[in-house]
């Protein structure tokens, strides 16, 4: 009898016997691929028609976002957030580092997120890693583009592309003069507070006050990396972490987190009660979400941090210190390459927090989960107590969770997207693996209850996926823009 190791080893070591294609296979495959490209183009056209219809019924919102002079308090919605934000006029940065050009940026052309129709082309070979939206139509993606090591004549390939029509078309925007994440250097994530104030982070921190025309690097203490950042109501909050991860895994091997905040254009300060967050020496992660206040009480805007030790910290955005609201059912676990937790995925809906505990928390100090299981919890009291929901999304490995008003919860996984419209009580697969990108998604966010965006997990894809019907259907938008 063979030993178990021999049996596995011999199975793995056995040579693959090539299987030549039957005659005509390539031609048949080519025809099918062409038909699918045409179908996708038709679907994208249908999606655009929906957007145009949306603009037609809400012209005031559209014209305000597109035509308001730069810096005049605009509504801001970061993908993944459900809240509206009113900002103060920004302080211009006169000492900004000249922006690196996106891989094919045209010198002299306006390069602003609000510079709709500037004519800047989108860099070729664009590999998006993060997306953010400022209102229902204007947004931007950050990623790496061009030929590594030789982008627009320089060494940095970090690039931005903007859209003013919710992904129907894209234009080039100047980018921070830094590279892809490599240990403590580079950036990979993006948030804009409005069409002017933007933040590129993970692991470095860069800011722009003019829609990306110029970027300035914010000095961080030695050994500190920014692993998460959100904006709301004229403020920015960020998690600063001490990490040892190398190469693209900038957020791995992080052992200590602190929450920092800044007013628009102001200096950064630590948030009391949310410093030195650890899991007892174990490498871990943490996550941050900000939730807007209600219309009559905008000052109720609240932030939440899922700490490495399972504590849920919360505080009003105006508070100088945050407090422990409760203990989460699972720990955030190890960080994924984008800095977000792989074990406990936190999202905020209207009056409820959701936490999806995945099997990636197995083996972490504070997790009760067993391998292969995932459990969804909800909290209606700001993280004090958690109720286990009877149903869970079961489509692959969860990567990102988003929520919105009316019981909307969306989860992006390694295989597709699942949506619940009843607060997690039941789930429906709205993008199965067969129709989505191979490898699924790394991120999903809902800019409002109808509009959502998702970033494919596979770094080689040049597309962002969009939904304009509350996650019921999703269509890809090639960032390169050549269809």
């Amino acid at each position, binding site marked *: 009898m063979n030993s*178990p*190791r021999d*049996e*596995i080893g011999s*199975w*793995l070591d056995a040579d*693959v*016997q*090539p*299987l*030549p*294609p*039957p005659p005509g*296979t*390539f031609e*048949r*495959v*080519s025809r*099918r*691929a*062409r038909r*699918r*490209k*045409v179908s996708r*183009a038709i679907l994208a056209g249908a999606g655009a028609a929906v957007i145009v219809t949306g603009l037609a019924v809400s012209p005031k919102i559209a014209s305000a976002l597109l035509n308001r002079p730069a810096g005049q308090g605009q509504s801001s919605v970061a993908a993944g957030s459900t809240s509206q934000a009113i900002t103060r006029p920004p302080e211009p940065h006169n000492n900004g580092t000249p922006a690196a050009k996106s891989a094919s940026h045209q010198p002299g052309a306006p390069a602003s997120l609000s510079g709709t129709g500037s004519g800047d082309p989108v860099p070729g*070979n*664009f*590999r998006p890693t993060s997306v953010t939206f400022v209102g229902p139509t204007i947004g931007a993606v950050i990623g790496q583009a061009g030929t590594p090591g030789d982008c627009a004549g320089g060494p940095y390939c970090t690039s931005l592309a903007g859209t003013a029509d919710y992904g129907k078309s894209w234009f080039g925007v100047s980018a921070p003069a830094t590279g892809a994440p490599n240990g403590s250097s580079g950036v990979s994530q993006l948030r804009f507070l409005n069409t002017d104030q933007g933040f590129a982070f993970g692991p470095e921190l860069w800011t722009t006050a003019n829609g990306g025309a110029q970027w300035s690097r914010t000095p961080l203490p030695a050994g500190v990396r920014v692993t998460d950042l959100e904006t709301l109501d004229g403020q920015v909050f960020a998690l600063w972490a001490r990490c040892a*991860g190398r*190469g693209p*895994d900038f957020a791995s091997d992080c052992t200590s987190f602190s929450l920092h905040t800044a007013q628009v254009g102001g200096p950064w300060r630590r948030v009391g009660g949310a410093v030195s967050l650890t899991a007892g020496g174990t490498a871990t992660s943490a996550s941050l979400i900000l939730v807007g206040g209600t219309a009559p009480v905008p000052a109720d805007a609240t932030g939440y941090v899922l700490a490495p030790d399972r504590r849920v910290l919360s505080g009003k955005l105006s508070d100088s210190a945050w407090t422990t609201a409760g203990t989460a059912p699972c720990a955030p676990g*190890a*960080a*994924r*390459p*984008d800095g977000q937790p*792989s074990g406990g995925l936190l999202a905020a809906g209207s009056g409820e927090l959701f936490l999806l505990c995945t*099997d990636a928390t197995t*083996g972490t100090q504070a997790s009760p989960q067993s*391998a*292969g299981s995932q459990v969804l919890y909800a909290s209606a009291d700001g993280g004090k107590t958690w109720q286990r929901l009877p149903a869970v999304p079961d489509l*692959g*490995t969860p990567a990102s969770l988003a929520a919105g008003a009316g019981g909307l919860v969306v989860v992006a996984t*390694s295989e597709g997207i699942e949506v619940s419209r009843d607060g997690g009580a039941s789930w429906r697969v709205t993008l199965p*693996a*067969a129709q989505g990108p*191979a*490898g699924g998604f*790394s991120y999903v966010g809902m800019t409002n209850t109808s509009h959502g965006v998702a970033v494919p*997990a*596979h*770094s*080689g*894809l*040049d*597309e962002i996926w969009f939904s304009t019907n509350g996650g019921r259907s999703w269509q*890809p938008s090639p960032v*390169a823009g*050549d*269809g």
Partner: protein
Amino acid sequence: MARLRTADRAAAEDLFNASYPRLAGWVRRLVDDDETAHEIASEAFTRLMARWSGLDNPHSYLYMIATNLVRDHWRKMGRERRAIRTMTAAAPADPACYPAQDVDVRALIEALPARLRSAFLLHYYGGFAVREVSAMLGRPEGTIKADLHHARARLKAALENADE
């Protein structure tokens, strides 16, 4: 746009000629017959070519698609086997319906959690380095290494139980 551009088509044809036989053979070890292997390999190339532009590593994307399609096939076969068992009220399905010699290990791999299975197939069976699998699955290298370790440990334990 409705037609692959000439340069892209030439590149796609080169990749097809170079990669199809090994990909189909790779799939064949995981399914029951040549016809299914060809169906999956063809579908993987179709999906790749339908989104050809911008991919910096089409080879890895191809194997990601094939891995997903094999998983879907396993699920479908599992549902059919359960349906047949229900209809015939018989004992577990006849193992003779698996002609391949790899069935025992394959069935155990099929039973692995999705997170472990993808990493296992791509690394040990697809021959991709840990760093490549990390990029393909969007998970840190350390996590991939841990997943591979856990996958092998589970397979070993399952085989030991089967031998007892």
